[in-house]
């Protein structure tokens, strides 16, 4: 395998050109965006009003307050599927041959895709925050903490994008990526503290819930948004005691593993 390196500047400019192309697509196929934005709204409403009465986060904490952090985390994880599907689709189209025959940076297609997906996540987080505000959620810890919460969500989403991007390059079609990611994402988001408090899980699942990165992101958001109650004790697990740090570990770890892995897979997949 020849490894023609390109300068970081070239990676950035080429990545930006590819990202711009993906953003144009958002404009041209607004239906995708609509569905991307509708599903989190549906989740907020479903959980707030269907399960809201059945699940008690404890000690007078309102379930809607408790829920929003979890929905945020779940939505950005779901949003990452987009990266995988977008890449899987690109690989099937002739455009990838054009990209490959150009003297452009090899990782630009991946950098561009993951970058443009940040825009999707910003939009869906904004929509969800608004929906949350409508149903009674409030961020209570000041502007900086609130922004830190959203920044952490976006960083986490960016990292998961690379995981899904990798899967998108491994699987043969867009249909498969949607099903494959469903298999990973559903357990990851539901066996977490996103919708149900940790102490409600049985002892077998509880360690998984406590160390699940989705739980950590959720817990970090709850703390940064002030959606916790002093009366609700935190689990003893280190991950739950230090959710922001633990989440950052995951973000760095995922990027260290999946960026090179995806770039390599892109080379393999596009030279078939």
């Amino acid at each position: 395998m020849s490894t023609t390196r390109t300068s970081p500047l070239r990676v950035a400019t080429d990545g930006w050109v590819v990202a711009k192309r993906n953003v144009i697509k958002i404009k041209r196929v607004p239906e995708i965006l609509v569905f991307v934005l509708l599903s989190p709204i549906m989740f907020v409403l479903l959980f707030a009003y269907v399960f809201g009465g059945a699940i008690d986060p404890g000690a007078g904490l309102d379930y809607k307050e408790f829920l929003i952090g979890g929905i945020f985390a779940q939505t950005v994880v779901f949003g990452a599927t987009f990266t995988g599907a977008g890449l899987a689709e690109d690989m099937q189209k002739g455009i990838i041959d054009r990209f490959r025959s150009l003297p452009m940076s090899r990782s630009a297609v991946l950098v561009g895709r993951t970058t443009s997906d940040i825009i999707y996540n910003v939009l869906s987080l904004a929509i969800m925050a608004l929906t949350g505000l409508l149903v009674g959620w409030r961020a209570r810890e000041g502007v900086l903490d609130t922004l830190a919460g959203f920044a952490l969500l976006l960083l986490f989403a960016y990292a998961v994008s690379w995981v899904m991007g990798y899967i998108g390059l491994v699987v043969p079609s867009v249909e498969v990526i949607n099903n494959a990611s469903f298999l990973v994402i559903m357990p990851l988001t539901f066996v977490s503290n996103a919708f149900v408090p940790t102490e409600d899980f049985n002892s077998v699942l509880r360690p998984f819930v406590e160390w699940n990165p989705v739980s950590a992101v959720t817990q970090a958001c709850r703390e940064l948004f002030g959606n916790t109650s002093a009366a609700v004790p935190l689990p003893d697990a280190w991950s739950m005691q230090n959710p922001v740090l633990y989440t950052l570990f995951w973000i760095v770890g995922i990027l260290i593993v999946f960026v090179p892995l995806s770039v390599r897979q892109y080379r393999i997949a596009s030279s078939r």
Partner: protein
Amino acid sequence: MADMIRATGLVKRYKNTTALAGLDLVVPEGTVLGLLGPNGAGKTTAVRILATLLQPDEGTAEVAGIDVLADPMGVRARIGLSGQYAAVDEHLTGFENLEMVGRLYGMSRQKASVRARDLLERFDLTDAADRPSKTYSGGMRRRLDLAGALVAEPPVLILDEPTTGLDPRSRQQMWTVIRELVSDGTTLLLTTQYLEEADLLADDIVVIDHGQAIARGTADELKSQTGGERIEVVVADVERLDDAARALTAVAHGEVQRDPARRSVTAAVEDDGAGRLMQVLQALRADGVELLDVGLRRPTLDDVFLTLTGRAAENDATGTPTEKEVSA
């Protein structure tokens, strides 16, 4: 004149098949090489190796003097590739597609934009420039793709079956465009299944089958290699095809080809085409074979191709007849 493309002993194997079995290609500067072969002959594999999209298992290749394995980026900066499947983004407009390609060649925004407009005008796409390319016809999309290959004015152009799937009118348009490019001095490697296309556009032709070159030369050289003129006889009753074939065998130079679907038999003759045609007609009349049509014609590349690949199919180690008949 330097060779702009030089490939030696290219081999590419896949799990169960050998796509290329030692292919050599040479394209001198400013000339057009037509790589002619049926589906699955290895044309696209060869193109993808030369365009750095694929690495050969064996062999070496240089494009514009640069080794494709040692410096793929250098090669990419000097080639334009237009593939069988138009490599355009359907959601982007024609302009956006070309501008994006220019930017990825490293052009400034302004330069890429000017170049995109120029190319759209040149390829008669100005009216459609700001429409998403998915609204384009097949011919327009192909032209846009070709324009994409020309953004950086590459000295070497590689076109993989540029007219496959196009209607006759779009094909004619494409040919006109390609001929203009060639007259500007661009070196061109062209793959095609259409013999007419190779005949029309290429200076030299390499006929490829089972990943190997089975013939090379100019169109005229290939035609003479297949023998001189050809006699074709169409019988009224398909039952008499064997009788007609027998009559032709007597005068034929090489094999007699049968086409039961068209009720025709064809054979090449070495010389004195008219005299031998008379001979055949007399034999057939004496035999009472009713004819629908007879003709004497110069060999086309179709004949060359059929003769060559027919022979290759017989040499097939497995002995299985391959579906190489040209249905053009």
